[in-house]
């Protein structure tokens, strides 16, 4: 690259870099300062450096680990369910989507709804006395499960998340499925390969990088879940539906533990960063 081009590049990239520094850099620096300080709402402008105390407090708090375990379970289960369902739908509906593109638009509608709205919608839909689902179950069978009761609440939030975000996985898999050269399938068919073997031995291996990316994205999204659970059931009885994001929110605003909340946020960021790095390494390792 010539020196002239280099200066030109720096000039063109400069405004974007400055914008990112202002929008992302400032909150990051502030979070780091507060994360390592003794800070409350009354001392926002005068944080006192406290070293790793906030990190010790956060990691010594059983609720933090309860929230981390909830997020881990929720992220892993929803990612597996969404990707499993999304993959099955993509493979099964690929011919239909190829012939009638508009069907895809219908299938991705849940993804368009804001997660907080989705939580509020389920709060109404599943209410024993006002919701249509329990109403019809009572009318037809004289009984309805307690969807948001202690025994079922985890399953309910998992299903709600899965129904909303399976279309995302479906879209990724559909694109991957449609990008597989048609002549490969035709060659396999000429050789007498049965559909299941075609999927298992040819299509799935070719789609594996996408499967991996989808699993990873959905896990991260599930791990940091906040809005739909918070609007549906809040932190849950005894904190049973407290995700790590809900823990951070409640520590910060409800309990005024700003330093501890930001220490937990930094830990969340570090975890995501490590996972992302590992995933990238694995992806690179799989690349042909």
């Amino acid at each position, binding site marked *: 690259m010539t020196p002239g081009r280099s200066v030109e590049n720096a000039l063109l990239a400069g405004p974007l870099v400055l914008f990112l520094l202002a929008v992302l850099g400032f909150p990051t620096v502030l979070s780091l300062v507060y994360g390592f300080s003794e800070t409350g709402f009354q001392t*926002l402008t005068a944080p006192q450096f406290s070293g790793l105390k906030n990190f010790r407090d956060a990691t010594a708090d059983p609720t933090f680990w309860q929230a981390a375990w909830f997020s881990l379970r929720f992220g892993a289960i929803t990612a597996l369910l969404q990707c499993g369902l999304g993959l099955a739908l993509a493979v099964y509906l690929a011919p239909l989507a190829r012939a009638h593109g508009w069907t895809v638009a219908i299938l991705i509608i849940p993804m368009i709804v804001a997660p907080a709205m989705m939580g509020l919608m389920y709060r109404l839909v599943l209410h024993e006395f006002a919701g249509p689902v329990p109403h019809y179950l009572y009318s037809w069978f004289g009984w309805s499960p307690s969807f948001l009761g202690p025994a079922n609440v985890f399953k309910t939030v998992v299903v709600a998340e899965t129904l909303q975000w399976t279309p995302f996985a479906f879209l990724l898999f559909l694109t991957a499925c449609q990008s597989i050269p048609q002549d490969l399938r035709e060659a396999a068919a000429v050789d007498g390969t049965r559909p299941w073997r075609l999927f298992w031995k040819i299509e799935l291996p070719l789609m594996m990088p996408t499967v991996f990316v989808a699993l990873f994205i959905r896990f991260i999204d599930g791990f940091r879940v906040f809005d739909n659970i918070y609007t549906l059931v809040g932190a849950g009885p005894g904190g049973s539906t407290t995700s790590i994001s809900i823990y951070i929110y409640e520590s910060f605003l*409800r309990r005024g533990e700003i330093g501890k909340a930001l220490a937990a946020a930094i830990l969340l960021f570090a975890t995501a960063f490590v996972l992302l790095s590992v995933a990238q390494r694995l992806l690179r390792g799989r690349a042909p």
Partner: protein
Amino acid sequence: MTFRTCLRAGAAALALAAGGAANAEVTVLGWPGGPEEAALRAVTELYNAKADLAEENKVELLFTSRDGFFDKLQVDLAAGSTAFDINLIATYSIGRYAPFMEPVTLSDQAGAVFGDTVLKTMQFDGQQYGVPTDLSLHFLYYRTDLIDALLADDAAKAKYSEIAMKHLGKALEPKAPADWTWEDFVANALYFTQSINPESPTRYGTVIQAKNLLFNMMVFHSWPRSYGGNWMDDTGAITVDSEAFRTALSQAKMLFDLGATPPDSTSYEYAEANAAYASGQVAAMVQWNAAAGELTAAQAATGTTAPPAGPDGRFTHIHGLGLGLNKAAENKDGAIAFLQWLSTEEAALAYAKAGGAPGLASETAAKLVADRPDLVQVGEYASTYGFVMNGGTSENALSVYEAQAKEFTGYWAGTQDLDTALKNTAAAMTDLLK
């Protein structure tokens, strides 16, 4: 529309906006939506119409969303926001906001208009931080048709006693709700639950809103308080791990375990609990006084009385919403003048007539018998049964409610036992109220 017309329209809009801003120099951040907003708008209009009010002291109202209102307010106050001169406060949050607010001196009439009990809901460290605009307390709501039928039927009475004997160990007899103890409340809830009494006309005997939410703890507190429970004793020692809290928590837990409250009610808050009662499938419930209109509209045969009694008497949690002075206010004189006027009888009566729910002393409330008979009952209950837990206005009061909500709902939902719940609550409260 031509380009020039558009410009003219834009200029006119700007002029209007500028003019509006110049006319409104005292900005009040109020409680959005509902009767509180309507009442505040009405009294503001009355105040702004006063002939001797200077232009720079006219009042403008500012409303945001109720969602996360107190969280946003906390951040605004901590940041020294000058976007408002007067802001909303609540009894349970005064301690948290006091460092960013200034005490106010109310009008000479305030004592006679509101009475000491209600004025105290806006005090912190012995100083008055606001004008009490709305008072919240609890009623026991019950289905008069169901209770009347029960009291008139000997076979039903026998069944009631049998159920009480089986689950409470006492052959209690049905009574009028005004005479209920909490044991009667439990017995009544069990009797009117179909899974216990298949002949019950309602699916559930009661509904307890038990979402892990601080406001639900306020509804629950009347229960342990009537057994002598409190957050702290006079020496400041935490007393939550007490027989009073154990009894109340265990009695409520019995209702969850026996299905006398909907199984989903561990996710219920105000709206869901009201919907349950309004459906006609619940016989009685303890709920905020604000729900009176909604519940009686849905179930016409609804009676109200004070919450049930315990060995220490009958109690209802009370708290007030009010308006106080932002320390960073840009027009303090104008703001103080408005707050002082708001604490006069003229303003309180206008506020009540416009739909607000001020806690008024009996003489003031008597002037509203024709327009707002419910306020007479609210005022009477507040002065007779009202209480605020020791530490209930402290800086960390909200966090105390939060800690209790987490632990107590965990016990009711079966995720932990009573000893653990109380031990964790006591530890959290010791840390928060030290």
